[in-house]
């Protein structure tokens, strides 16, 4: 196991642990306002200080991790459950109209400026975690479709696939039995990368107010709330910023480490 993998694993599990623990315990209620105690710097009582409503930042960061992880997980899930079958289908029917339609559809989605569309979606259907998930998820579909198709196409050229065809197996069966397991590593690695991009996207959407709505804490919104206060209470912006950086960094290191560990030859896309 490489250094990347270990460091990535540590950082990611730290964040995951914080999110899980927050279900049963946080130092304070993340929603409890205490306006007289607002804007305190980190101290023994409040490890990360308090925000402009006197809420405990540490508790908010913990619960915020939950939000980030939930949004990113579901968004990546959407991308995978729809993108992978599409990619497999396109590869199995390479060159057919179906392949063409799927790939052109992918290009289409790619061609839309993602943030603008996310804003449109939330503007049309209202701001909120669900719509943020959908907006992020939609843009995950072509990523997975494309990468699955690419990897599957080269697998289809391999002789063991020919052997399976000689054994009378159909495209669907071959895709499930031979292609999918062999692209799994790639998907895990890409999934990690998309997960980290999902965290960033959620933060961005929340920052412009289109992510999870209050009182659900979200790192992006904490940053937005902190914006006007950085000059006199920098911890409000630094702490959620670091939380995002640590999480994304952890996931990226994990992704790179996993790639090297599982299969150094695979390529991931990052855009």
């Amino acid at each position, binding site marked *: 196991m490489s250094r990347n993998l270990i460091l990535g694993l540590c950082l990611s599990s730290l964040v995951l642990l914080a999110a899980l623990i927050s279900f049963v315990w946080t130092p304070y209620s993340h929603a409890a306002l205490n306006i007289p105690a607002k804007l305190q710097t980190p101290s023994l009582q409040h490890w990360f200080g308090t925000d402009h409503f006197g809420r405990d930042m540490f508790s908010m960061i913990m619960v915020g991790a939950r939000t980030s992880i939930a949004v990113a997980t579901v968004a990546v899930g959407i991308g995978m459950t729809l993108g992978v079958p599409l990619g497999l289908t396109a590869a199995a029917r390479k060159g057919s109209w179906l392949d063409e339609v799927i790939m052109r559809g992918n290009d289409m989605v790619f061609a839309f400026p993602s943030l603008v569309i996310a804003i449109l979606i939330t503007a049309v259907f209202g701001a909120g975690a669900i719509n943020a998930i959908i907006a992020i998820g939609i843009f995950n579909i072509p990523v997975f479709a494309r990468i699955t198709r690419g990897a599957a196409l080269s697998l289809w050229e391999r*002789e063991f696939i*020919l*052997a*399976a065809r*000689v*054994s*009378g*197996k159909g495209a669907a069966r071959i895709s499930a039995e031979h292609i999918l397991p062999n692209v799994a590593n790639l998907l895990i690695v890409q999934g990690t990368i998309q997960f980290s991009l999902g965290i960033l996207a959620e933060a961005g959407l929340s920052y412009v107010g289109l992510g999870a709505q209050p009182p659900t804490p979200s790192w992006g919104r904490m940053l937005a709330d902190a914006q006007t206060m950085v000059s006199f209470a920098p911890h409000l912006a630094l702490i959620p910023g670091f939380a995002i950086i640590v999480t994304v960094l952890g996931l990226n290191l994990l992704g790179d480490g996993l790639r090297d560990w599982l299969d150094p030859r695979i390529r991931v896309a990052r855009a």
Partner: protein
Amino acid sequence: MSLLQIENLSLAIHGVDILRDVSLSIDPGQIVAVTGESGSGKSMTALTVMQLQPNGAVAEGSVLLDGQELLNHPEAEMCRLRGASIGMVFQEPMTALNPVKTIGDQVMETILIHKAMPRNQARDRTQEVLTRVGLPVDRLPLSRYPHELSGGQRQRVVIAMAIALRPKLLIADEPTTALDVTTQAQILDLLKGLVTEYGMGLLMITHDLAVVSEMADQIVVMRRGEVVEADATADLLRNMQHPYTRMLFEASGHHVILPEVPQTYPLLEVANVVRDYRLPRKRLFDAPGQHRAVDQVSFTLNKGERLGLVGESGCGKSTLTRAILGLEEIQQGEILLDGQPVFSSHKPNLDVRRRMQVVFQDPFGSFNPRHRVARLITEPFHLLNTPPTGSDRQDRVAEILKAVGLRADDATKYIHEFSGGQRQRIAIARALIIRPELILFDEAVSALDVSVRAQILDLLAELCAAYDLTYLFISHDLSVVRTITDRVLVMQAGQIVEQGETEHVFGDPQHSYTRALIAAAPQLPEIGKGAA
């Protein structure tokens, strides 16, 4: 004094010993061939001479070029020597050239980088060298890109690059392995001619003993990083000291004895088969082009007969295989197995499919790395209406593994735990498990070392006796086809140009193409007699 003198060269990469006490020498105008099985350290020796070993390599001993020590020679000095004093040609002509630069630029670069002459003169020299290697500029302008050339042409460009400055020493690492026999013969001729003409020393690496014996003045046999035997070619062939050398030569010319073909009937009938591939349109509104990969092919394969199919790369052998297997639809003609079509109403005919199996060339690519052997070799059970289950299935697996010379408990291993030869045994096991009436071998032994190849050929002969195999054996290696088949088809550009009894065709070829093929194939000399 020798041109190149390697003495007690040892090499370790990241602490792993790769070469031990390798010694050899080359005189000007001499061809020294280094041979041995895959992984024996041939390429590493060459790269060490070039001082291009991989990172982490530590070399000891001495490598003298014209009396000058190359080991740990300063890198800048080495750059001056490479290309000017030592040229090198690599195995894979398809990837040895930069795809985004013209061939002219790439050849000229050798000259320019050493500031040997001004640009316009360099251009003339480039044209001259390319002409010398058989690529006259009026037929192949300097502005061509590598992808516009055939494999043989590319290898000529690589050679032109290596000899542009007439180096004293030329190193050729498997220069013809990736080429067709006819092309191989031309390239070998070219190299030989260059050596005599320029008085270069040639260090030639090859695992093909036939090539070695035809070309070399000296032979060096390597095994596991050590030189096991080295001598002048004639002496070595006459008097082999080391058992390994003997084993190598024996395996190269390995003959097997096939059982007699029993009284028989036609099993596979191929009649007037045509397979066209659509090509992308040349211009936007043109009709799409067509490439006829298989052209009016007809033949019959009788039950119990072993049929060979030879021909150059790209002549349509694999395409024909796929058509017979019913994996692709054909455009014309008919393929019948035991009277039934393999492809009916645009769908593969499963009744027929389950009576055929295939073994592919690539021992690494033909298995799903994520499945265990048991699952891999039982995949054809999918074709059966009632596949065996439970202990029945296990018995079948154990039986077939034993039949191909493996152990029953290998069934639980993954494919990466096997060597290339073992993998090919597993591939044969997979083909045999449903007792097919016809097996197709598509270059099934081409990727194997000679010794392993000999074992597999023996195995096939045994299986013929045990299972009454009928097969179509495809190979570009004439010597293999000659020993393992009863009858042979010769294919050229999609057409069968000659067919007949194997011995008959090889002994007295009728078609000019067959004759060319046979002439180009290097002959292994009778061991113990010495080379021609």
